[in-house]
């Protein structure tokens, strides 16, 4: 286990054969006014792994993944996805990258004015993918089947329970078969049974489609089951990095409080 960013770099470069790093966050700075949220944040994510970002509420986890997908612009630093820097990209190129990176919003962000079917259809149509209506219907059914909610296809989001909404949001993220999925607190606000189901679903998806996952969470159950590696975000920095086992044995005060 490593405690300093400099050492972090050494560690990640160690198992980094070129092409294996799908997402590289390079010395990222982001502040809102005088509120410094991210300070020199550095992280490499390796293809096929499942990486959990741990941090207190308000520590900037959502800000971090919104920077990754280009919803927020970092003040300084660089983000490379599939080896391309997103800050220099045109809007069209960024859209192409976004079609390959799924984002599960903390608040689900289902479109309330659309049915479940239209919600799932939206990213397919909007990414200007050339497919027939028949193929679109099949993809929608497939995605709903993956999350076990095929019967809700003509319902409105308001008619669904919290757990169902999370699954539909997950289906909408999955429908483009993304290579990387960013999960923003996938189990927050759900009961323990439902959150276990969601975690299981995430792991099934990871196996089935061989995706890379970046999961933001402070649900220890989720961290334990779903993580290959864990990053602890403290004071805007990548404070510690290691496997769940390594970090849970840590003697460091700031790390220990998460595993207490």
């Amino acid at each position: 286990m490593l405690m300093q960013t400099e050492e972090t770099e050494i560690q990640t470069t160690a198992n980094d054969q070129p092409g294996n790093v799908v997402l590289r966050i390079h010395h990222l700075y982001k502040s809102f006014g005088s509120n410094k949220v991210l300070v020199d944040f550095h992280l490499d994510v390796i293809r096929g792994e499942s990486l959990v970002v741990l941090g207190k509420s308000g520590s900037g986890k959502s800000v971090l993944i919104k920077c990754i997908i280009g919803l927020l612009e970092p003040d300084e630093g660089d983000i490379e996805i599939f080896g391309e820097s997103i800050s220099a990209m045109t809007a069209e190129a960024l859209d192409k990258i976004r079609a390959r990176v799924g984002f599960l919003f903390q608040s689900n962000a289902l479109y309330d004015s659309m049915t479940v079917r239209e919600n799932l259809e939206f990213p397919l149509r909007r990414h200007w993918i050339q497919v027939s209506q028949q193929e679109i219907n099949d993809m929608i059914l497939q995605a709903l089947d993956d999350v076990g909610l095929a019967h809700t296809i003509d319902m409105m989001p308001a008619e669904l329970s919290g757990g169902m909404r999370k699954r539909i949001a997950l289906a909408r993220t999955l429908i483009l078969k993304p290579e990387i999925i960013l999960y923003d607190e996938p189990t927050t606000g759900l009961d323990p049974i439902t959150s276990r189901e969601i975690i299981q679903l995430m792991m099934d998806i990871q196996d089935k489609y061989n995706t890379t996952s970046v999961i933001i969470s402070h649900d220890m159950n989720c961290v334990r089951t779903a993580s290959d590696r864990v990053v602890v975000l403290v004071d805007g920095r990548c404070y510690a990095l290691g496997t769940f086992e390594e970090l849970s044995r840590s003697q460091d005060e700031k790390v220990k409080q998460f595993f207490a």
Partner: protein
Amino acid sequence: MNLSPNLKSFLNEAGDIARFTGRFFSQTIRPRFEWNEFIRQCFVIGYLSLPLVGLTAFIMGLVLTMQLRPSMVDYGVESQLPAIVGIAIVREIGPVITALIFAGKIGSSIGAELGSMKVTEQIDAMEVSGTNPFKYLVVTRVLAATFMLPVLVLLGDSISLYGSYLGVNVKGSTSFYLFWMQVFDNLSFSDVLPAFVKSFFFGFAVGIVGCYKGYNSMKGTEGVGRSANSAVVLSSILIFIIDLLAVQITDALGIN
């Protein structure tokens, strides 16, 4: 500088709205116009407002006529009733009342809709789904409001005048044909055109203010309510300000 905080926040907001309007124009001229969404919004904003606009316009025409009659009778110019009402409705009351109703219905619904989309991250979700949310949500709604309000004003004016025709017949009697002859004999192109042109500006103001308030909504359900509310208040004030400017301009140009 020593500005009071109120004045400062007012100026800040005016600057923000100006920037938002600038962004609207620069996004509108960029390619890939969202035709489907624009047409859907024209339906929602225009067609679905028709019953409300029609009802209020009808009642207004009827009541205005009935209330004007006693004075007209006193002056012995009862026969001029259709002409007077026609001018009042077409030049001022029709556009302004329709625009205010429109601000209440459409301004608040755009403010609330975009506000709740903002706070529940639906706007961000659109952005990561290969959509420019400003073009998809704002440009379409503002243009739909701009083009639908003048249509509603024309329809509202006609319904109002029909109400007025019934109003004339409550205590007097005039034929349908005679009524319309009297109205149109006294209306000239210079009465209709400025009123029609200013309705575009009214519609634009309602659209841009509703979108601005919604798009910049504060987190939380309270923020959404406040967006809807302040969208109506601000767009109603703007309607009167535009009305005031319009009359100065037509006056200066000698169209009267």
